[in-house]
């Protein structure tokens, strides 16, 4: 029985895990960096320990310090959340060596799936469909060009060690190959410490659909249905839903069975996700496995009624799965929107800052996972994700309209967010029809997204606020004229 869990993470996911621990009557141990002393995960946990500087390399990536805290506090297990050390097989190994339960798969399973080319090879061998391409990292740009010509343009370069769109390039022609290979490789090197890049045939306008599975330690597995994750910008997910409007009963079953087979091939246990690329003919190909809890897991929780963290802990304790495949049924529809501290009108430039006002949406069918608070800072040290808003409905239409209402109700002031952009995105006819693929956001941003029109109520509100604030501080001089400073007109690219 697990009695005390250390959460090797921060932000909304740390908070989310601690909440389930409390529901289960398990004690929680938070860790924090310099800048996170005031963070909510620190305040809500039963115990909290400082582990170092604000840079994640000095704190949330420090295996030695985290394991020290686990031993010192008497935690019998560590939950890694997502990001940071969650897919680091050496960390899982270090936990295993110290007799601490790692709430996730075993280190060999993480290792097997961790490097994309290795995983591709394993999956191809296990009979799981993979996208045609190279099975090994490319040696140099010359080999890249040669392979690209064999496979046929367009091709996709991908970081062998990576994820999250880092070190990824679409290559349309031979002339672009060398430059694309070099930049993908250098980006991969700086992001993952490994410049290895492999190549796949590019599937044009693919959908990105993933399958959630649970595997216990005896190798029993269930699939819990898919998540549609095609709403992406620069390979980062923005809106997810479960189920996918593109997947029918038969396809779901096939994907589920393939996913469990893929996991079994590496001796996987705990919660995991198999990501598939899906072409317009509904062919699906193994892309990668995320050997951890996903950011977007709440949509699966909403349609299955399961608490995935709860299930993770029971599996980590060595218990048998409590659900059978035949018991599984999906109920209704769920959508998640990721609210980021970024400015859509300036090419999604990150916008760190201090949150002055927050009003979290409430009411029927709405869940918000967030660590934001008024007066809190969204720093440039970590991910710009501020909140995940999840809406459920009996059908897709109900879920989407509830989401729209929730986003409108959500107030975050003090920094730029993509909230208005999200609301326009899910209000778009193509989204409402369920007809979208991974190219949608770029086209929407280019051709259709506009900033909101002038508003009389906003103008009057601002005047009233100005008047009442000045009235309160009668001795204040008028502020200098609001001439726009020069940096605002500057261009940012990425």
């Amino acid at each position, binding site marked *: 029985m697990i009695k005390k869990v250390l959460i090797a993470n921060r932000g909304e996911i740390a908070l989310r895990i601690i909440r389930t621990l409390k529901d289960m009557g398990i004690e929680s141990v938070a860790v924090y960096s310099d800048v996170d002393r005031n963070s909510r995960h620190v305040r809500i946990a039963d115990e909290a320990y400082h582990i170092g500087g604000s840079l994640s390399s000095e704190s949330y990536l420090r295996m030695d310090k985290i394991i020290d805290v686990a031993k010192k506090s008497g935690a019998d297990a560590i939950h890694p959340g997502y990001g940071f050390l969650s897919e680091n097989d050496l960390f899982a190994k270090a936990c295993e060596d110290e007799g601490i339960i790692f709430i996730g798969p075993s280190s060999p399973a993480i290792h097997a799936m961790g490097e994309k080319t290795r995983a591709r090879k394993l999956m191809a061998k296990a009979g799981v469909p993979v996208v045609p391409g190279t099975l090994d990292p490319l040696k140099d740009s010359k080999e890249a060009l040669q392979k690209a010509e064999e496979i046929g343009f367009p091709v996709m370069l991908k970081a062998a060690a990576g994820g999250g769109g880092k070190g990824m390039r679409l290559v349309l022609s031979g002339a672009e190959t060398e430059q694309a290979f070099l930049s993908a490789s250098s980006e991969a090197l700086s992001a993952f410490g490994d410049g290895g890049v492999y190549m796949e045939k590019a599937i044009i306008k693919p959908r990105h659909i993933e399958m959630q599975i649970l595997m216990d330690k005896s190798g029993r597995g269930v699939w819990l249905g898919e998540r549609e994750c095609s709403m992406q910008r620069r390979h980062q997910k923005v809106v997810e839903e479960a189920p996918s409007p593109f997947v029918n009963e038969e396809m779901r079953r096939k994907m589920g069975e393939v996913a469990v087979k893929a996991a079994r091939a590496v001796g996987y246990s705990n919660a995991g996700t198999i990501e598939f690329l899906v072409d317009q003919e509904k062919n699906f190909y193994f892309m990668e496995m995320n050997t951890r809890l996903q950011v977007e897991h709440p949509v699966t929780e909403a349609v299955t009624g399961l608490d995935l963290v709860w299930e993770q802990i029971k599996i980590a304790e060595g218990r048998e799965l409590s659900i059978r495949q035949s018991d599984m049924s999906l109920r209704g529809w769920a959508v998640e929107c990721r609210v980021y501290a970024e400015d859509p009108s300036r090419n999604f430039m990150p916008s760190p800052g201090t949150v002055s006002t927050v009003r979290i949406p409430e009411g029927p069918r709405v869940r918000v996972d967030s660590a934001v608070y008024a007066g809190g800072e969204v720093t440039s040290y970590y991910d710009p994700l501020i909140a995940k808003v999840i809406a459920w409905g009996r059908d897709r239409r109900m879920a989407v309209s509830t989401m729209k209402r929730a986003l409108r109700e959500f107030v975050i002031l003090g920094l730029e967010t993509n909230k208005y952009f999200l609301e326009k995105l899910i209000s778009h006819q193509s989204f409402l029809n369920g007809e979208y693929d991974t190219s949608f956001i770029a086209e929407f941003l280019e051709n259709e997204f506009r900033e909101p029109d002038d508003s009389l109520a906003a103008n009057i509100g601002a005047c009233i606020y*100005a008047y009442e604030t000045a009235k309160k501080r009668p001795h204040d001089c008028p502020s200098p004229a609001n*001439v726009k400073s020069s*940096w605002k007109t500057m261009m940012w690219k990425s």
Partner: protein
Amino acid sequence: MRYIILKNDDETVIELSPIETGYDVQIGGEKHKVSVAKITDGAYSLIMDGKSFELAIHKEQGEPYIVHLPDGAIRKVELLTPIEAVARKHKKSSGKGSGEVKSPMPGRIVKVLVAKGQNVKAGEALVVVEAMKMQNQLVSPFDGLVKETRVKDGESVERNGVVAVVEKTGAADQ
């Protein structure tokens, strides 16, 4: 009290007159009776011609008013007092592009791509800044000559910190 709303260089005058339940508002020849309830600092409820608006408002020194509306959108309102409007007109004629390239957010300098004395094109990347796990390029505002670089690889940069100064090509001749 009179305010001037600035939008794309157009000025609109708003006149507020306090009444018992809120304000009489005159804007662009129209009159509105607005019932106002202040809920907390920066949170207002407005009822205008029967319509209800819950507003959240935030203001930072030197920045526009940020107003969140029930439609979920944020409007940025640039508001001037009559004195500020006059000051702005004086300032306007003397404004020139300084060529200072600033980082719009705090972050870490990944790489300085140019050196002093180098010619650069408009839109050419000068410095790569990393913030929130993302790399962004700071680019030259115009064709010109790099007069100086003020940061080094690996250094931190503050919000609005100058990373480089570019002199517009031909500016010296004028």
